[in-house]
């Protein structure tokens, strides 16, 4: 059984040993989190399951674990190398062992604190004004990405230009109708206003009517109507008529 294939189940890592090494070397796993004792135990337990002693595997494992331990020791004591260089090797080893033991105890104390925090999880007490818990997140229904894209596309599209057509009132000049009616009256003595403006737009009809009033005002025509809403009859005025009667006629129109 090659040591590299050793399956590990540690707190910080689960998987084959060579993956652990790869992750450590690529700095993707903090070596401080790796329990080297756990690795050794896993290997020994695996070894115990088999009756034969594979010396090659053991040798390889020793080399790998030694490298791992060296890396870990360096990481733990990064700033302390200079101090230790002044000591002789035996003293340095002892100092290292002492510090590691101290750190181990602190780690255990931290674990105790973590357990305690877990056990005392139900502690609530007044702490100045109690901060209100944030409102719970609203869960959204499962959404279709295509629907989102469609909604966005609709929003991103250029909106149609607003039409101002209904605001544009093009008034045709009154003169146009004045000259037209005068030309008509030069040929005929009378005509029917309604049939003359038939087919025109409401606006043109209105302007034509203004022209009619204008002609009437100048005394050029007389207007008459059989009854309300009946066709307006226009008649050329041969001679000037008294103002009062015209007024009456115009009102009746």
């Amino acid at each position: 059984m090659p040591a590299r294939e050793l399956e590990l189940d540690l707190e910080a890592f689960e998987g084959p040993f060579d993956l652990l090494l790869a992750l450590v070397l690529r700095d993707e796993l903090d070596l401080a989190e790796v329990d080297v004792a756990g690795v050794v135990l896993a290997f020994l337990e695996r070894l115990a399951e088999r009756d034969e002693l594979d010396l090659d595997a053991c040798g390889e494992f020793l080399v790998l674990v030694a490298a791992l331990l060296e890396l870990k020791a360096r990481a733990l004591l990064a700033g302390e190398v200079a101090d230790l260089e002044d000591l002789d090797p035996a003293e340095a080893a002892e100092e290292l062992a002492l510090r590691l033991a101290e750190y181990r105890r602190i780690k255990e104390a931290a674990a105790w604190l973590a357990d305690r925090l877990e056990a005392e999880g139900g502690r609530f007490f007044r702490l100045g004004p109690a901060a209100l818990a944030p409102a719970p997140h609203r869960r959204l229904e499962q959404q279709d990405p295509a629907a989102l894209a469609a909604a966005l596309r609709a929003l991103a599209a250029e909106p149609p230009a607003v039409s101002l057509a209904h605001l544009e009132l093009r008034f045709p000049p009154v003169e146009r109708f004045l000259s037209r009616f005068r030309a008509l009256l030069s040929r005929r003595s009378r005509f029917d206003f309604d049939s003359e403006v038939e087919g025109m737009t409401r606006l043109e009809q209105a302007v034509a009517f203004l022209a009619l009033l204008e002609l009437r005002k100048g005394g050029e025509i007389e207007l008459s109507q059989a009854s309300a809403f009946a066709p307006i009859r226009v008649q050329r005025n041969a001679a000037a008529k008294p103002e009062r009667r015209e007024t009456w006629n115009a009102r009746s129109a």
Partner: protein
Amino acid sequence: MERPLRLVAANPLDRLARTLEALLVVASQPLSVAELAEATGDDAERVETALGLLSERFHEGRSGIVLEKVAGGWAFRASRDAAEACGRLFERPVERGLSAAALETLAVIAYLGPCSRPEIARLRGVAADSVVAGLVERGLIAEAGRDQLVCAVRYRVTPLFERVFGLENLSELPRLDDLGGEAEEIRDRLESLAEARPA
């Protein structure tokens, strides 16, 4: 059902107990017997007796409010039965999301404090600046003077630390020697493996 309360009301100590109750309900941190004695104008011994009476009344399983001796004083907290409901309404920013590094730093300061950042870094093998700053912000540790030699700021754990961890005082922390269970277990497993191995 109301009878015991009437009997207690007749007790002269009950007047003191009621005043203490009021003081504790207003307080946002544990009050020491000395503080309570001063506020009530009564003597410490009577205050302690009255506190004993109150802690019987405000007992876990008996009341939604529990009186406890914590962080060197007395304080009310919610009963554990109500923890779930409390958790829905109230945040606990002090202890939420404490990292492993924060707990280790906290352990160093709780056991060896007051101590400075360089000392913590020396023990943990990594710089402790941001972790220490985080713990100060949470209110779990506070500055406690300066180191005489290197003038570094030293830190100690706060009463809030004791309160969050439910400690009456720091002497309730287990001795570091008692924490060696894991090393013991590793040794045992190694020995049993050695025994199992055929010679």
